[in-house]
């Protein structure tokens, strides 16, 4: 034992100690600021992420159009008077040269333009979708042939970039997609009030296209919807049945342990592996159609199954045993207790889990690439066996296209996908707060 008298009591007021305490407090404050810094960084990143997408995406919803007085030249529809049946007339209308119609209008408008390449460049101000607009006009009413029609035609993607400012006029001509003379034509049209940028109808109603100004998201939205329906119809009943079985009925034995281990495994498997499974089993063994929402939905169903099972089990577990005891005491059988009392009370939690699982499935891309949903699908899919694509895959495909115009289409598609996701999550939050009971 040391001599207690030899030990000096610590002088907390000494300069050394005060400095030490100051240092420790400073370290404490620093540590707190690291935490704030981490949170702040996460917030900045989120703002950057969403901001960069919103800024890029807004022009993607728009379409630039050019107003022209197009003379529907009867010479281009020769033989239509003699057409015996409406089908023959339609055939003539379908195959008429509509490019020539607006090219003639543009040449009248810009008489100074001469030379083959310049005239081609001039007519290229109008998107190839202009042909379709004119064709639909004639198809709807044949009496327009021989008249002059005042129409808004979709402008080419480059004109759209110029009009929305994503193509800078300051760039040297050689690096610019539109040359000086083309810009001057657009300016001239604009000065006459014949250029407008409006909300694009095509974007919301059409399928994919090679031309950014004509590409639409509707095909992918329908594909996503069909795929999610299949996913829901498979994973919801199976997931709920599994959860009820494991939570309420299963005896504690090796079999139920095995099931639990497997559910946890499935939850941890990278999503791309599900794609490999879909490819090897659904496509190569069962010969189901490639690119179909049916196969996509089945693959995603397997992936969402663990999410639904885990959420449903938690919800079932939260129902107090007294409910079960009361029902059993009144003579209900085990199945009646479960399906008449416990499951309905757990339903809000189950539905919340299901919606979150569906939201995951909606955002999933990788497994769908494996089963061929990357196909370039122009038509709107009509059923679960048709070739189709889904929103995230469409985003992936458009992000890969080299045309600058697709960048804003991609961002616009992302905004639509995020809107759907936010909507689904909002419903889940609403369900949870409105219907979930605390016992």
């Amino acid at each position, binding site marked *: 034992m040391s001599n207690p008298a030899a030990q000096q009591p610590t002088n907390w007021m000494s300069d050394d100690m005060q400095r030490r305490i100051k240092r420790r407090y400073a370290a404490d404050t620093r540590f707190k600021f690291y935490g704030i810094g981490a949170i702040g960084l996460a917030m900045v990143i989120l703002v950057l992420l969403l901001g960069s997408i919103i800024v890029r995406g807004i022009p993607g919803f728009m379409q630039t159009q050019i107003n022209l007085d197009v003379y529907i030249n009867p010479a281009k529809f020769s033989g239509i008077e003699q057409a015996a049946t409406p089908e023959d007339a339609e055939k003539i209308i379908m195959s008429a040269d509509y490019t020539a119609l607006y090219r003639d209008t543009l040449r009248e408008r810009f008489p100074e333009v001469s030379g083959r390449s310049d005239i081609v460049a001039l007519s290229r101000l109008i998107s190839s979708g202009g042909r379709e607009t004119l064709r639909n006009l004639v198809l709807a009413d044949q009496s327009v042939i021989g008249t002059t029609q005042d129409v808004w035609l979709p402008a080419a993607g480059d004109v759209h970039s110029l009009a929305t400012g994503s193509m800078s006029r300051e760039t040297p001509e050689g690096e610019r997609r539109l040359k000086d003379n083309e810009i001057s034509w657009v300016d001239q049209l604009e000065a006459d009030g014949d250029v407008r940028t409006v909300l694009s109808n095509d974007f919301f109603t059409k399928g994919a296209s090679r031309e950014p100004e004509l590409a639409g998201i509707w095909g992918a939205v329908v594909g996503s919807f069909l795929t999610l329906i299949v996913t829901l119809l498979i994973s919801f009943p199976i997931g709920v049945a599994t959860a009820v079985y494991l939570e309420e009925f299963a005896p504690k034995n090796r079999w139920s342990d095995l099931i639990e281990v497997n559910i946890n495994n499935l939850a941890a498997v990278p999503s791309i592996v599900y794609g490999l499974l879909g490819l090897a089993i659904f496509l*190569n063994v069962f010969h189901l159609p490639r690119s179909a929402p049916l196969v996509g939905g089945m693959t995603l169903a397997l992936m969402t199954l663990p999410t639904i099972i885990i959420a449903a089990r938690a919800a079932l577990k939260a129902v107090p045993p007294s409910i079960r005891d009361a029902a059993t005491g009144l003579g209900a059988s085990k199945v009646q207790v479960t399906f008449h009392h416990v499951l309905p009370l757990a339903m809000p939690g189950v539905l919340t889990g299901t919606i979150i699982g569906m939201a995951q499935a909606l955002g999933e891309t990788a497994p769908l690439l494996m089963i061929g949903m990357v196909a370039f699908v122009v038509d709107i899919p009509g059923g679960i066996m048709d070739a189709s694509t889904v929103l995230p895959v469409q985003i992936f495909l458009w992000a890969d296209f080299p045309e600058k115009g697709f960048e804003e289409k991609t961002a616009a598609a992302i905004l639509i996908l995020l809107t759907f996701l936010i909507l689904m999550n909002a419903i889940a939050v609403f369900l949870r707060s409105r219907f979930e009971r605390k016992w």
Partner: protein
Amino acid sequence: MTALTVALTLILAITAVSFVAGRQKSLSLVNGQLSTLHSLPGHYGSYVLLWCLIPGLLVVLLWTAIGPGWIESIIAGQLMAENPDLTKAQLDLLLNDLRNQMAGDVISRDVDSGFQDHAKAYASMIGQGQIYTAAIAILVTLVGGFVAYGQINPRLRARNRVEGVIRLVMIISSTVAVLGTAGIVLSLIFETGRFFEQVSFIEFLFGLHWSPQIALRADQVASAGAFGAVPLFAGTLLITFIAMLVAVPIGLMSAIYMTQYADDRMRSLIKPVLEVLAGVPTVVYGFFAALVVAPFFREAGEAIGLTVASESALAAGLVMGIMIIPFMSSLSDDALTAVPQSMRDGAYALGATKAETIRNVLIPAALPGIVGAFLLSVSRAIGETMIVVMAAGLAANLTANPLEAVTTVTVQIVTLLTGDQEFDSAKTLAAFALGLVLFAVTLALNVVALRVVQKYREQYE
């Protein structure tokens, strides 16, 4: 499909009628005196319903499962008899074309009269099979319904039987999870086995050269492709490492701040931020990486005189790290809240500042949970696909320089399997071998993570 659709509709209609009939019969048998019935009237109805529905549906399912295959084998027999020199591959191709012709798809074959005949025979056999199936299914449904209807009497234990079926359905549903895992494992192992028939196991795991493109001419150099996967593993690890450098400090620090410093108001502000980051689909992160972050790094590199590849590992890894922040943060959050308050109180009582308590008491106590979170995050990063597909490179490049482009296991799986190619080539099978490696590694990480957490968690309970 038409005959089957009609049959299914009819079966459903009969089923609906049978439920009402069964229910009515049980009621009328006892003149409305419910107490003399063994089960509720609805149970008798359901009993008849199940006897209608299950046999009918089973017949239809049986046909869909084996019918077309059976007819195909008959057609295949005919084709072989006609042309004995047909190889297996040619036969498969022919059958595939027949199938596509049936579905109305475009096929890459001259439709000659012989082919036309076979297509017709095929179609008519399928049609006939469907009509027979439909007839049998409806018959079985009716017979089942009548038998069950006849069985109804007040002493029939209808409830017990119906509940037995419900239990059976639940048990079958719960095996789907097992079947899913089994399906994944078996399909991966089977295809990987075929891959290793063509490429040596050692070359795949330890080879330094990856170029799976099959040459056009057989005598070309490396015409069989090179399948050394080490560059892919290295690339995956490099990107994962960068991702962890971002995700671990930010995720852990935000979890510490959330659990130790923030008040409720702060938390309600921060939580949504992390939740939104967690909910953003990976393809969106991929877009962000490829179109915002990567060009930024390239230009920044140019400005200070560095060459940064436009598909640099740095950009992909950084964005992947951002994706993992919320995951890391929420798992560490759980680990930190699990540490009992008394340990922190003890540290405060000894005069430790908050930061000292966190560093010297809280983190060591929560370490198993944090290690578990780290391992799960690594597993997540290794399996992540879209970010690297969009922002990392395609060429296998064995380097540790984060400014260069590298490729990863998942990128190669996607590149090998998108686009059309025959399913037997080493190139497509290689994707399954990579998938198996991926599956095994992520599974191992998850198992270890769970073990670590479980083994050390009890210490404070």
